[in-house]
């Protein structure tokens, strides 16, 4: 087989299930014998992205493509979009409400973490249309 293709619906109304797609990908990577440090890097980045889709975009789709030498994860939503990407990428910037903060999110660290842990990070967002983030970790 050339590569492994996985797709998940991320439910925007279910905070409890957020992170399941990432857990599943993590499990697959472990089974494939990928280096634990690389697994953790993509797991953190994808999990942050999954949580973002749930709390900021009412859910979306997570697609993972696992190759021999890398994993590429796409997080695609049809949420509100991000007005100012540069600002959103700043550590500490967050529009999260007090409700979300009381759940442990809204430190404004998710996007910076995603960039920090991946070998390639791409973000496209259009107001009123949605956001697409592509994360790549090389093994």
């Amino acid at each position: 087989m050339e590569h492994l293709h996985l797709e998940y619906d991320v439910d925007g109304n279910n905070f409890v299930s957020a992170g399941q797609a990432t857990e599943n990908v993590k499990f697959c990577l472990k089974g494939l014998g990928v280096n634990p440090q690389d697994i953790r890097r993509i797991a953190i980045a994808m999990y942050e992205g999954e949580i973002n889709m749930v709390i900021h975009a009412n859910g979306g789709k997570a697609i993972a493509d696992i190759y021999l030498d890398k994993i590429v994860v796409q997080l695609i939503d049809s949420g509100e979009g991000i007005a100012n990407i540069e600002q959103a990428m700043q550590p500490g910037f967050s529009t999260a409400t007090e409700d979300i903060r009381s759940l442990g999110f809204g430190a404004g660290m998710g996007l910076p973490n995603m960039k920090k842990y991946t070998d390639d990070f791409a973000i496209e967002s259009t107001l009123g249309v949605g956001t697409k983030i592509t994360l790549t970790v090389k093994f």
Partner: protein
Amino acid sequence: MTIEQVAQILNAEFVCCEENKHNEVHSACGSDMMSDVLAYVKDQSVLITGLCNPQVVRTAEMMDMVCIVFVRGKRPSDEAIALAQQKGLVMMTTQHRMFSACGLLYSAGLIAGESC
């Protein structure tokens, strides 16, 4: 130290997976903001927190942590317990507040995980 020693130091009560209490732990992280925890990729084995929802367990799992300590006598939600049981993640609850729980473990030799 072992997870069992963590429980002794904090006078904590096990919530689940006590059978894994003989596992060794070396470093810890204390926070109520999950992205703060996720910001430091270095090995950390214990998460000290006042948050009780299932995302605490997911965060610990992403970081390959093996033990969660809930401060201020908090008890995790049933969903959080079910998730931790699936993963064999030890959970315990202590009456200490965050600052003292961290201080006690730090003086006993647990170190802070560092950024990569």
